């Protein structure tokens, strides 16, 4: 017998937790799914009740997780949504086993991932995403004594550097590709969101021993079998830094696989939603980073709006929209401030691997006309990550759009794909 809920929420970061909480508080049956072992998403990854109070955003974590627990909402951890085999049904997988779940309303809160750009040496062990290194450290990796270079783009770089410094790593420098002028303009706009200014200042305080350089970026990483040094540039001169780890990510990009699979309209790189977070597909809402990279505050507001809408409390949801609009503008300003400079397109040499799963080089791709042609002829994007890494890179490098999505959106075992009720059986229920 398939489990079925009034509301199913995919993604247990702030947006998903807020949506599930307010829907469950209204007395509906709600299930909150996440592929991680515990709820929290990226921002609250690894947070525990005993220690969260002193961590950035720990107060919100404590408040929301306590509120969620009081509702009795079902929390399914470790489950990945891979397909929608029939209307109102999601197929899930955990540990190689599949299961179907029915829903009346669906809230997608699948968050964002880092945007990665290829440069020589980016596949060496010890080169990680910036958020990637932070996630691994939250997952128990000890950075004490490690020499870490933080590079790429986005407000995340400062947060990562601060976390590494707090854990006794040696931060060798923080390198932001965006030019100082653009960042200063962005900083001025934050006067309307003083909390963000304070947050940035606190992160910077913890990393004062490390240089924070704008308008500079990584050229290559080198080493015998693992990264040992990185070469940086400001566009005029180059210099080299020794390091144990390079943490490099170029701002964030939304995880649109599930919205695309369900047919949600995408506009300007984000899920297109109405003021109540409803996508173009009836009964399917999108919240948080899916609708614009704006962080925890925006996700919490949008999650509440979607949760209220899912239980018919539209008026209460609408009451939150003016506040949410401020965070929408914040998200747009972030995208503008941390837009990628064209010079980053020239980092990959002909031999540089662009598709890490299949080892497809830049040289093999540059003569192709489209993402589809590249896939068919080179296997770019055909490996287990399904283009999550190289797809964004190819979009930036070659201007290819990757709009189509086919199930399963994550690799799944054959038994999961074949099992579960058949579509006909589901339709007759």
């Amino acid at each position, binding site marked *: 017998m398939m489990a079925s809920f009034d509301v199913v929420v995919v993604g247990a970061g702030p947006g998903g937790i807020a949506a599930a909480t307010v829907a469950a508080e209204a007395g509906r049956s709600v299930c909150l799914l996440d592929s991680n072992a515990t709820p929290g998403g990226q921002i609250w990854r690894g947070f525990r009740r005993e220690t969260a109070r002193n961590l950035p955003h720990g107060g919100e974590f404590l408040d929301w997780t306590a509120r969620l627990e009081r509702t009795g909402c079902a929390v399914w951890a470790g489950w990945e949504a891979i397909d929608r085999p029939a209307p109102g049904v999601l197929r899930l997988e955990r540990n190689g086993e599949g299961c179907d779940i029915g829903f009346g309303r669906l809230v997608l809160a699948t968050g964002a991932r880092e945007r990665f750009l290829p440069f020589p040496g980016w596949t060496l062990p010890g080169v*990680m995403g910036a958020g990637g290194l932070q996630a691994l450290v939250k997952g128990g990796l000890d950075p004490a004594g490690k020499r870490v270079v933080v590079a790429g783009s986005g407000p995340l770089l400062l947060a990562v550097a601060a976390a590494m410094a707090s854990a006794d790593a040696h931060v060798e420098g923080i390198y932001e590709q965006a030019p100082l002028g653009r960042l200063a303009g962005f900083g001025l706009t934050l006067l309307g969101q003083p909390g963000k200014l304070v947050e940035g200042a606190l992160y910077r305080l913890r990393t004062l021993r490390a240089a924070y350089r704008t308008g500079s970026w990584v050229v290559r990483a080198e080493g015998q079998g693992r990264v040992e040094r990185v070469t940086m540039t400001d566009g005029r001169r180059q210099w080299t830094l020794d390091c144990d780890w390079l943490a490099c990510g170029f701002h964030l990009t939304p995880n649109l696989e599930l919205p695309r699979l369900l047919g949600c309209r995408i506009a300007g790189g984000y899920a297109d939603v109405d003021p109540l977070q409803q996508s173009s597909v009836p009964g399917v809402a999108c919240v948080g980073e899916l609708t614009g990279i704006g962080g925890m505050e925006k996700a919490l507001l949008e999650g509440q709006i979607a949760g209220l809408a899912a239980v018919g409390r539209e008026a209460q949801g609408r009451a939150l929209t003016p506040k949410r609009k401020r965070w929408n503008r914040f998200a747009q300003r972030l995208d503008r401030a941390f837009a990628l400079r064209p010079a980053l397109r020239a980092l990959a040499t002909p031999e540089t691997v662009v598709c890490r799963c299949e080892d497809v080089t830049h040289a093999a791709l540059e003569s192709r006309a489209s993402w589809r042609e590249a896939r068919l002829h080179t296997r770019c994007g055909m490996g287990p990550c399904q283009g999550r890494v190289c797809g964004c890179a190819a979009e930036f490098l070659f201007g290819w759009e990757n709009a189509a999505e086919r199930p399963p959106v994550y690799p799944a075992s054959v038994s999961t794909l074949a099992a579960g009720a058949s579509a006909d059986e589901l339709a007759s229920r």
Partner: protein
Amino acid sequence: MTITVNGKPVWVAEGTTVAAALIMSDEPSRISVHGEARAPFCGMGICMECCATVNGVAHRRTCQLVCEPDMNVVTG
């Protein structure tokens, strides 16, 4: 607690992800199509570089998986 990575014992604190344990072990998480050693990269279940066989189940995303006592991890 202790887990085993490619036969090597690795001590980890409770709550450590298998991907973090892989980095501590210095074992590559996989060998790429052209023979390069790879290690965990995105840390959040996206890139699949950290996939390994855990307690006999192949292709586990180790960054999404928390260590359990005597877990057996095989990479490559």
